[in-house]
Every structure is written in C-alpha cells, then in structure tokens.
C-alpha cells in the first residue's frame, strides 16, 4: 500500500457526509476496494471477524482479544479509529454493554462481494459481442503510458522549457490542463504554465499515488460540474476490480459515469475506440487502482539484469522503478533514456553527461538548494531517490545488513544527511496544522490524555515535562477522536460524582434506620 496515496484518498473520503457513505457502501465493488485499499491490516482482520457475527462484538471482548502490550494496543486503537472515520464501525449499546457493530450497508455489500451474491452488477458488465478491432494488452499499456506521461510532461515541462524533444508530445486535452491548474499543480502566469510546489510533490510520487491525487482533484471538480460524486467514486472503485484486456459495456452506466469515460480516457485510465463507443477497455492504470501492483509495468529486464536494458525501452519510459544508483561521492547514475525521467532528475541534480541508456549527474549544494527554492523538500527528494533506487542498491543494503531482518539504508547515509543539512540551511521551521489543547485538569488527566493521543498517532508535541512540570499543553493534528475522549472522560467523572453523592445519601438513610 503506498501510504501517501491512500492517505490522500482517506482524507478525501473522511470529509464526506454519512449519507454519502451509505450510498457508496451499497456497491459491493466499492466496499471491497475500500476494504482492501484504505484499511490497515489489523482493521481488515477485525472487519472480517465481525462480518458474520450476528450480534455486536462487546468492547471488553475485543480488549481481551488484543494482546496487552503497548504496540498491539496502539495498533488496535489506530485500526478502530480509521474504521470509525470511514463509518464502517460504530459503537453501539447491546443489552447494556458497549459493543462494536459494522455498518449495515457495508457488511451487507462486503458479504455480497465475498459470496458473489445479489444482482448489483457492480463488478463491470463485460461486452458479450466481439470487438471488430480488438486491442491487445501491450497496446493498452502503451496507450496508458503515453497518456499519463503526457500529463507528467505537461507538469514538468512547465518547469523547464529548455529540454528539447518534448514540445510535440505535450498534447493533453484542455480539460486535463484545467484540472491540473485547479488542482494547484501548475499555475498560469502570462498564459504560460508554471509548476507549483504541489506540482513537485505530485511529480515525485509513485505512479499509483499520482493517479489517486489527480482523481481526487477530479472528484472535487466533478461536484461543480453537476456530476454525482457517489457515481464518480463508485465507478472509480469498479474500475479497480475490472480485468485487463477485456472490453466492458457502456450500456448500464449512469449518465455521470458515461460523461466520465471521456475524461478517464484522457488520463489513460481507460481506452475507448473513437469509432465504437459502446465498449471500453480498462488499462493497467485502472486495474491497479485498488491494488499495490506497479501501475505501469517496467520492462522485466530492468528489474532483473542491469546491463542489458538497452534496446527495449529506448522509446518509452525507462521503467517505473529502480533505475538510480547513488554513490557516496554524490554522483548519480540513472539507467534511463526517457526525457521525462531525465527532466525530473534535472529538477534537483546537475546533469553531467548522457549516453544512450545512461545519464550521469551529481547532487550539488546549488542543485539541491535551487530545487528547495522551487518548493521541493529534502524529504521528497530522498523518498524519490529511495523508491527509484536501482535493485543493486537494494541488494547491497540487504547484504550489508546480513541476517538482520530490518533492511539497512538504501541510499548512502552521508548523502541523505547532507541533503537534509542543505535544506536546513535555508529553513528551520516546520508547520503543522492542528489543535492546541490546554487546561486538561489534573496532571494525571493530562498524562492520560497525552498517552491516548499518542496511541492514536495524532500527538505532535507535548509541552508538559512530566510530574506536572512544564506547561500542561499538547498539540494534536486531529481533534474529532480527542473530543470524543474528553466527552467520555467528563461523563465518567460526572457518573462518579453522582455515585459518590448517592452513597453519601444511602449512608444517611442507614443511620436513620
């Protein structure tokens, strides 16, 4: 699971109203995709355990089921928190005891997805007639790659207009251009597109995350265009469950979804023959939407053997993963001939020389700092280099680590540190939007609340220094769970007070008797 992409989608989903969720969850394919894609591992196990349970699962039983060590408990809290945020799980009172219950709509649809029952037709209706002009999988791959790279070219091309050979390929539709502008990836200045900081973030992500980022912008846009967001979302999730190389019928799509086909084919997510509009083919970009497989397959030779990567990929991109070798002396060798990858590299390196299948470059202070001035962060650069590191570098880091199960650093640590230091020279502040909580109550209450926030993974900083010293403030990134916690605390305190009063009262009666 590429966590950035799913986080992005999660954030979007979360702010939807509950009614939208209920509508979404009527589609089994949507349920399956959300289940598979958005949930942490433990949450999946919990959902499946609860799926066929007739009555709510008592919270106390869940607490017993989870091992008592800190890691397990915090993993459990995080799983429950995400499940609640996606309105999949809710806490209900069952015979006076609190219990966990799955959302009706969700559990019904997930059961249908698992058993294949019902007549919802949400896994796509294949075309039962033979296509007059059948397309092959390799054609679909090429189509998807060309479309998607045209988009990336457009974004990256707005940063550097000097690297030749790109002007002819940058033909993306005006709709997509507008989408990229509205998404804040490029900004128009003097009728000339300029890349923005989020545009860089977009570029340096892996491809699956890029698609999701773009699709979420598309979703936000679609509301303004009078499209039904539920239809859009469920169609996207349906696309993720389709099979590559099979054509699907357009007949039972809703009007919104029919409108989407054109846009999606601009992105390269589906392919539609301009002549025959009754059918569409999902490309690999679509079928991997809800999985972790690489969206654009690299040439197999690239991932296995390093020296023979010449002829196959001279025209197309040099593969999705693993082409960069970084040395401790800041030299960088990239086995690629794709102008797109080269221009991405040129954002933060100074290129030295270019061979038919190899580009050499060097990371310098100037190159990194100019990238940082453009709005790229050091973390982005490092993560880009890490995800695209050559298999040999991975093998080396594993060999160095030996039997130890945790893999060692893939990039040379000195270079990673230096990139960070170069950034720190310029800026010394990180800002995080969030909430400051103060006046919690007694020092114990404060410690407890901080511990809870930490377990949820929302704690950014606690200003207290233990033993009631320091300021009793802490800072969290999310508030909804915390406010629930404080409400529960207040309720418990009130209950306790009432009980105490009742006990006092009872004592009085006894004395009288």
């Amino acid at each position, binding site marked *: 699971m590429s966590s950035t992409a799913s986080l992005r989608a999660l954030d979007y989903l979360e702010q939807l109203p509950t009614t939208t969720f209920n509508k979404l969850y009527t589609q089994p394919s949507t349920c399956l995709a959300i289940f*598979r894609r958005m949930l942490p591992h*433990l949450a999946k196990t919990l959902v499946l355990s609860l799926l*066929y349970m007739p009555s709510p699962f008592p919270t106390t039983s869940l607490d017993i089921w989870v091992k008592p060590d800190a890691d397990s408990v915090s993993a459990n809290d995080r799983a429950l928190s995400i499940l609640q945020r996606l309105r999949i799980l809710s806490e209900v009172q069952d015979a006076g005891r609190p219990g966990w219950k799955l959302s009706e709509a969700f559990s019904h649809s997930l059961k249908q997805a698992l058993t294949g029952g019902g007549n919802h037709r949400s896994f796509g209706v294949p075309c039962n007639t033979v296509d007059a002009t059948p397309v092959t999988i390799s054609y679909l791959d090429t189509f998807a790659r060309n479309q998607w790279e045209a988009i990336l070219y457009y974004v990256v091309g707005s940063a550097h207009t000097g690297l030749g050979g790109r002007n002819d390929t940058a033909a993306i539709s005006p709709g997509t251009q507008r989408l990229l502008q509205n998404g804040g990836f490029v900004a128009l200045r003097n009728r000339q597109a300029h890349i923005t900081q989020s545009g860089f973030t977009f570029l340096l992500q892996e491809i699956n995350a890029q698609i999701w980022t773009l699709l979420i912008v598309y979703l936000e846009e679609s509301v303004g265009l009078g499209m039904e967001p539920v239809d859009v979302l469920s169609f996207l999730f349906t696309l993720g469950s389709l099979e590559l190389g099979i054509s699907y019928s357009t007949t039972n799509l809703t009007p919104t979804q029919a409108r989407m086909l054109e846009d999606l084919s601009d992105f390269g997510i589906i392919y539609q023959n301009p002549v025959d509009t009754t059918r569409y083919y999902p490309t690999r970009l679509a079928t991997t939407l809800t999985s*972790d497989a690489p969206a654009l397959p690299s040439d197999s030779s690239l991932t296995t053997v390093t020296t023979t990567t010449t002829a196959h990929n001279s025209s197309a991109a040099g593969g999705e993963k693993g082409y960069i070798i970084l040395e401790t002396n800041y030299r960088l060798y990239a086995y690629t001939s794709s102008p797109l990858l080269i221009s991405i590299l040129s954002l933060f390196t100074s290129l030295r020389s270019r061979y038919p299948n190899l580009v050499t470059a060097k990371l310098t202070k100037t190159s990194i700092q100019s990238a940082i001035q453009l709005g790229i962060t050091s973390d982005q650069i490092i993560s880009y280099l890490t995800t695209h590191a050559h298999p040999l570098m991975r093998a080396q880091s*594993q060999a160095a680590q030996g039997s130890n199960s945790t*893999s060692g650093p893939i990039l040379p640590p000195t270079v*990673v540190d230096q990139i960070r230091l170069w950034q720190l020279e310029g800026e010394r502040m990180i800002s995080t939007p969030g909430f400051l909580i103060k006046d919690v109550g007694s020092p114990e209450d404060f410690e407890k609340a901080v511990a809870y926030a930490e377990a949820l993974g929302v704690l950014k900083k606690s200003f207290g220094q233990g033993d009631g010293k320091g300021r009793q403030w802490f800072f969290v990134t999310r508030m909804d769970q915390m406010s629930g916690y404080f409400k529960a605390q207040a309720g418990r305190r009130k209950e306790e007070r009432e009980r105490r009063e009742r006990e006092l009262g009872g004592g009085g009666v006894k004395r009288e008797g």
Partner: protein
Amino acid sequence: MNAVDGTDRSERKDDAPSPSLLTIILDTNPFAWSLLGTTLPLSKLLANLLVFINAHLAIGHANRVAVVASHTGRAEFLYPVPALSKPTSTTTTNGYSEENHDIDTDADEGEEDIIHTSDDANKYRPFAHVEKTLLHSLQDLISTTTAKSLANTTSTMIAGALTLALTHISKTTTPASLPSNTTDSNNFTPTPLEPTEGRGLGAANARILVVSVSGDLANQYIPIMNALFACQRLHIPVDILKLAGDTVFLQQAADLTGGVYIAPSDAQKGGLLQYLMMGFLPDAVARNILVSPGEGEGVDFRAACFCHLRVVDIGFVCSICLSIFCEPLQDEMCLTCGTQLKMANYGIEPVVVPRRKKKRRKLGGTIDADRGEETPGSAVGTPG
C-alpha cells in the same frame, strides 16, 4: 538539528504487511464424509471454505491461496491446477473406461463455466476464478474415485498432502528465477509473490490450514512428523480445523509449529464460518497483535510406536536412534537402526512384596452400598 539525526536515516519501514500464502489441505476421505453426512455435508463445508478463501484474497491484492486434497490413497492439487491434467482431464483417467464419457462431459461443462465467469458482473473475477477451478477439480477428483480404488485403503493421505503443500510453499516463496508466465492464470507455475524489497518473500508468510475429518493417522506417524519438523524449521504455522475423528498428531502439529487448533463440537459446526473467520483468518502479522485461540490449552503429546503404529502412553525407546516401540523387541535388535539392545532382566517378574490382603467384606460392602445409594440418588436429582 534533530532532523538530521541518524535514527531517521534508514528507510522508512513500510507499514503494509507483505503478502501471505495460505495453503489449505482439505481432507476428502469419502469414508469420513459419509459419517459426517448429516451434521456437516461436504458441500456446506465447501461453501464456507470458499467464503473464507475469498476473505483471505480480499485482504491483500498479492495474497495467494492453494488447495490440496488429501484423498484416500493420493493427494492432489485442487487449486492451482497442474497444467498437464487441466486441458484434457480424460488422459489421467484412461484406466476407467466406463467413466470416460462422464468425465468428458464434466470437463466440457467446466470449460463453459470458466467462460461464464467472465460474464458474471456480480462477482469479483479473481474470486470467481478460484471458485470455478476449485469446484471443477474437486468434481474431477470425486468422479475418478471408484469403489475399486476405495477398497484398498480407508485412511487419508495427510502426509502426502502436507508434503505437496510444502513443495508449493517453497516454490512460491523462494525468489524464483523461473520463467514466470503470469498472463496464463491456469499455468501451474506459481507466480512468485510480489518480492518485498527485491527479495523473495520469506517462508514466514506462508501458512497451512488442515481441514481434517478422519481419525487414525497412526500409520503415517513418521512421514507426518517429518513434514511437521520441516514446517517447524521453515516457521510455517500449521493450523488445524478438526471436524471429526480424533488424532493426537494433528494437535501436536499445531502446537509444534505455533498454529491454531480448533475442534468445534457438533452443535458449534453451524457457525463454522465464524470459526474460520476469527480463528484462522488472522495471518502472521495479525497474530502478533491478537491472542490466538487455544493458547495455553493442554496438548496430547502421545506418540505412535514404530513397530505396530499404535498410539502409546508408555513405550520403549531405542537409546541410539530414539525410535519408539510398544513392546520389547523379539530379537533384541532395534528395527530402525539395528543396534543390539540387550535388556538383561526385562520380563523377569520383579520381586514385589505381596499385597496385603484387604478386608474385603467390609470395604467392598461399603463401597457397593455407597454406589448403590449414590447412583439412584443422582439420577433422581437430575430431573428435579
């Protein structure tokens, strides 16, 4: 400056768990299923099992499943199907000419079904594929089982199935240099699981689930134990779902390899799916967090002797090779390693002080009287 601290330097650990491989060994012993017929027919178990398999596949895109049938006298892959016997199932059944026709039509129906799956818009295609293949090959297996082939043996080939499962796991989990032919999903060459960080996935992510219905595996004690030790060495947990019969070895298997052992009672078999979902679905990652069922329960550690394959409480152990025998050996030679084992004074009646005779009349009388009173008393007590 803390941001440049070396602790942050190593690669951010991917929180996504690596894919897992679930190998199910289904005991298809016809004798045992005919006994179970009324409480839990095979078809019902299969329905539950298919939902369970789908749930496993739903957890992760890269999760894999394999099903091995442990039949009488042979063990066979039900899913994925070996490439050779798949296209023409008749070739394997040449011996049974009278059934050739039946199988032929079955196979044709199967082919049609496979085409149909892609037309079904209500089912996720990978699920449909597994289901069709599994049912089809199980049908094949059942139709090739004749009374003649059943006459020879009544026991099930758990040991063979375990071995098949182990070969499949090692084939799938080792970083394969095999020419992977992923486009053909019917191909038997198992597609290697997504390599995590450039390496094949360790066998630690594989597990075996044995759905066992027949008892008495004592005649396969040695091969079963050998397979189990291999599992233990590879850190493959062997989970046991015991639906009928009673074998001590399978419980030992779960205990030895860190698996889960569940034997639902007859009344509980109605909720079989819930057992599967809660007890057996959590994989290695989730089992680190959750408490596994049956932890800390007593395990029957009895072994079977090597000479008559009886389950013994107390036996004789060769001091050289640790073979177990239920009775002293006739020619004083270990059957396994051939060591001369002299038991000089075994069999001689030990000199025991003769038992003091108890006062029979009084003691026996009271016990009898007690019993006599107690039994009717309790019998009276229960209805009230």
